């Protein structure tokens, strides 16, 4: 679990040889107020879209670096998995999308007062990106700007 051995030998070899993009320097934003007063957004790389949204492009070389906005009041059961990777088991997150975009859990944390508010939108990516240049240069700053405009304090990020 949580190990390269869960992948095929071909994928393991690719991942061992892959040049991971190192974050340097590492930025840091401390929490500025209690979580019970914070606005929280979710970010998932599970490739979820809602009906009517364009699916992620599973043919794009290097991966599709675009993102979709998922409204904060979205019905979790309506989320559609369009992640292209065949290297992991999709059945759990198809049965319960909260496994990779825990919107219902966040609602419960709001109702209990553990966190302040749910943001008006969450963000969905398809994380199977081998070419990260455009993502780092263009997509990530633009997507982050949306959450800044929403006055989000905290983002929780979930890969698959």
């Amino acid at each position, binding site marked *: *679990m*949580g*190990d*390269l051995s*869960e*992948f095929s030998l071909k994928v393991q070899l690719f991942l061992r040889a892959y040049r991971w*993009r190192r*974050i340097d320097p*590492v*930025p*840091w*934003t*401390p*929490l*500025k107020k209690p*979580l019970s007063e914070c606005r929280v957004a979710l*970010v998932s*790389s*599970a490739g979820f879209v809602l009906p009517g949204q364009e699916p992620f492009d599973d043919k794009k070389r290097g*991966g599709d670096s675009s993102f979709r906005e998922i409204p904060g009041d979205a019905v979790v059961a309506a989320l559609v998995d369009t992640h292209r*990777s065949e*290297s*992991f*088991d999709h*059945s*759990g*997150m198809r*049965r*319960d999308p*909260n*496994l990779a975009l*825990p919107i219902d*859990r*966040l609602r*419960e*944390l709001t109702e209990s007062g*553990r966190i302040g508010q749910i943001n008006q939108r969450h963000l969905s*990516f398809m*994380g*199977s*990106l*081998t070419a*990260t240049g455009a*993502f780092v240069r263009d997509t*990530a*700053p633009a*997507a*982050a*700007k949306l*959450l*800044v405009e929403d006055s*989000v*304090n*905290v*983002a*929780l*990020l*979930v*890969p*698959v």
Partner: protein
Amino acid sequence: MCSQAVGLFAAELERQGISTVAIQLLRQVALRVRPPRALFVPFRHGYPLDAPDEPGRQTAVLEATLRMLEDPCLKPPALKDFPG
């Protein structure tokens, strides 16, 4: 690759003033990419919050991310293990 993508996006959010925690499924990737705050979970790919239809187990993972945000002793890059 997903762990790298969320790590890179977490870094951009932190640059723009938003506090983050990125769940990570591969320790090797977390150590190389270095997200600002990362929670390594011992679950297989596709199961970052443990199990489907298990609200308590999913919330336990989220609660661990929230505790990282509240920990004043953490320094970047911060990597913790779940359940810890």
